[in-house]
């Protein structure tokens, strides 16, 4: 018996020898500039951007794992693929020595809560009282924790709207859905250069990152770029195939003249402040409460929004106001509103859009159908549940918008 065990022991010695031969050891113990041991650096050669460089931060403060081990299965225990996911962001991006004030702000912002969509939807469908007061439970974070779907409107939200929020797990869902969401990286991530083998975080957020989600409803992301989601026939047919360009989700778009700001080189972040996109610490119900920029902020004003904050692109050059774009630092002159056409007292009540919005995509005849026999993917829970929703419309038009009264101002009214 003892001999057998000893034989087994010799066998184990050989196993140990082979294991050691196969093991890839490090040439030295890599250390970051703060003195922390970071063995990840001995195997991984990824290079993020300069402000988060591998020599200063290493890998584990963002991606977790065990920075003291070189054996893959030990080192990768507790690894976080997307450190910006709002579920873990308190420990990663929001760590006390990094961006501690951000997680709380972002989790309260409308892009994370979707409070406006949920609240409005439930009111329109008669599930909650009409007065649009602030309700804590109208929040994607709350819905994520609910096991069962409590209402029809919420089922509709989960299946058709529930992929456009910051809690959405990037990469989890198939096809184009996999590109959406991800917490901080939903906006801040751009592909890195090939040699870097790592995507890059940026403050120069390209328009594509915004349009990933802001391409429905009012279709601002499309119209701004000069794209019009039309009736969807895909015409002209060329050699038997669709000749019209289409978006990732299959909707056909026609090219139309773009917004003058887009033509000038401005993207979303040139106007929209961080306090609008990432929240200013207050939890709002509707985007009208959150958005603070107006046309007069730049055209006629000095860059101060209605809440008193400054649009950073508006700068004084000499005795003139100019706008400097964020992406490529282009200097653009700022036209003040015409004294007669815009400022005359008979036009006092007109909003800028009333005249300047020449063409607005308008979607008429909204129909929503639920088929209880089929299942559909609930984008909040990730499960296929009974009840498949489909939206239809009567027709789509690109026309001058109807004018209407909102309070004292004459604004444009856009169905869809």
């Amino acid at each position: 018996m003892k001999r057998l065990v000893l034989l087994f022991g010799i066998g184990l010695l050989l196993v140990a020898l082979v294991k050691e031969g196969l093991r890839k050891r490090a040439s030295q113990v890599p250390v970051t500039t703060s003195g922390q041991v970071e063995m990840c650096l001995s195997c991984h050669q990824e290079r993020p951007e300069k402000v988060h460089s591998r020599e200063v931060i290493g890998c584990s403060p963002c991606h977790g794992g065990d920075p003291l081990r070189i054996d893959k299965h030990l080192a990768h225990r507790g690894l976080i693929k997307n450190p910006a996911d709002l579920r873990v962001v308190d420990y990663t991006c929001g760590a006390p020595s990094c961006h501690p004030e951000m997680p709380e702000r972002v989790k309260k912002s409308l892009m994370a809560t979707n409070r406006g969509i949920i609240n409005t939807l439930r009111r329109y469908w008669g599930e909650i009282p009409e007065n649009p007061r602030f309700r804590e439970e109208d929040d994607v974070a709350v819905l994520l924790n609910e096991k069962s779907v409590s209402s029809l409107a919420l089922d509709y939200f989960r299946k058709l709207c529930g992929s456009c929020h910051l809690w959405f797990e990037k990469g989890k869902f198939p096809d184009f859905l996999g590109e959406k969401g991800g917490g901080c990286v939903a906006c801040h991530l751009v592909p890195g250069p090939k040699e870097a083998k790592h995507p890059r975080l940026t403050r120069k957020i390209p328009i594509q990152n915004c349009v990933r989600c802001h391409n429905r409803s009012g279709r601002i992301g499309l119209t701004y770029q000069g794209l019009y989601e039309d009736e969807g026939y895909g015409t002209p047919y060329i050699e038997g195939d669709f000749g019209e360009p289409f978006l990732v989700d299959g909707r056909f778009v026609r090219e139309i003249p773009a917004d003058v700001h887009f033509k000038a080189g401005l993207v979303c972040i040139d106007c929209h402040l961080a306090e609008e996109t990432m929240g200013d610490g207050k939890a709002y119900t509707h985007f009208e409460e959150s958005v603070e920029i107006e046309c007069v902020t730049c055209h006629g004003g000095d860059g101060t929004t209605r809440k008193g904050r400054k649009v950073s692109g508006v700068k004084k050059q000499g005795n003139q106001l100019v706008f400097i774009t964020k992406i490529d630092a282009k200097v653009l002159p700022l036209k003040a509103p015409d004294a007669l056409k815009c400022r005359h007292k008979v036009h006092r009540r007109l909003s800028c859009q009333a005249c300047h919005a020449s063409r607005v995509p308008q979607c008429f005849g909204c129909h929503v159908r639920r088929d209880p026999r089929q299942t559909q993917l609930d984008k909040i829970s990730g499960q296929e549940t009974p009840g498949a929703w489909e939206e239809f419309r009567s027709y789509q038009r690109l026309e001058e918008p109807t004018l209407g009264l909102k309070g004292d101002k004459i604004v444009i009214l856009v169905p869809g």
Partner: protein
Amino acid sequence: MPLLSTVGIEGVIPFGALFRYLHYYAAQFTFLFLFWHTTEALWARSYQRRHFFHWFLLTSTYPLTILALFTGYIVRGDETGLSAGRIAENLILTLPFFGKILNRLFFAVSEEGIHRAYITHIFLSFVLFFLLGIWHFRLRKIKLEDLSLWATGALALSLLWPPPLEAPHFQTSLKGPWFFLGIQELLRYLPPFGAGIIFPLIPIILLVFFPRAPKRAGWGLLLWHLFYFALLGRGLLR
């Protein structure tokens, strides 16, 4: 930085990880065998055939072996080791006069890092090995076959379960060396002097004075260990 050396042994030196794991498991075996040996020696009433002074010396190697084992944890230099060192330092400092002297002899972790614990670990291990070796090799010839048997066991464990190494991150829960989990648990409820000095001294005193009152000391040791294992279980489940 000591952690650099520990990680270097495991990640840079050829076969370093294997030797570190073997060393760890061999140490755990030493402790477990000491526990078994003491129990068996008490059962066989070997104290009757020894002079009390020799018995006292022999039993004093029990806490010294635990000290050698414990300082091995400290010198790892990771979060578990450093925290264990700080706790041991503060527990020893609760002793009125000798506390300061003993702390400076063995620990002094907050002032000098792992330096003194390191010296204790190496020095004590060698002293114990030589002295206990001299005593025991006189009595019995230990077969290489038996030692190889247990080496195989340590090797098997080394290949299966790497010993822990705790990196600093936002951990809100650290588990100390497994054999001290019971004391870690008791320290939540009782003041440090009681849970950290008096409580662990009880079995040592019972062991030393076992020859004088075998039945009572025996029951005392049994009850203490049952209580300790209950605490250890509770600490493990956290």
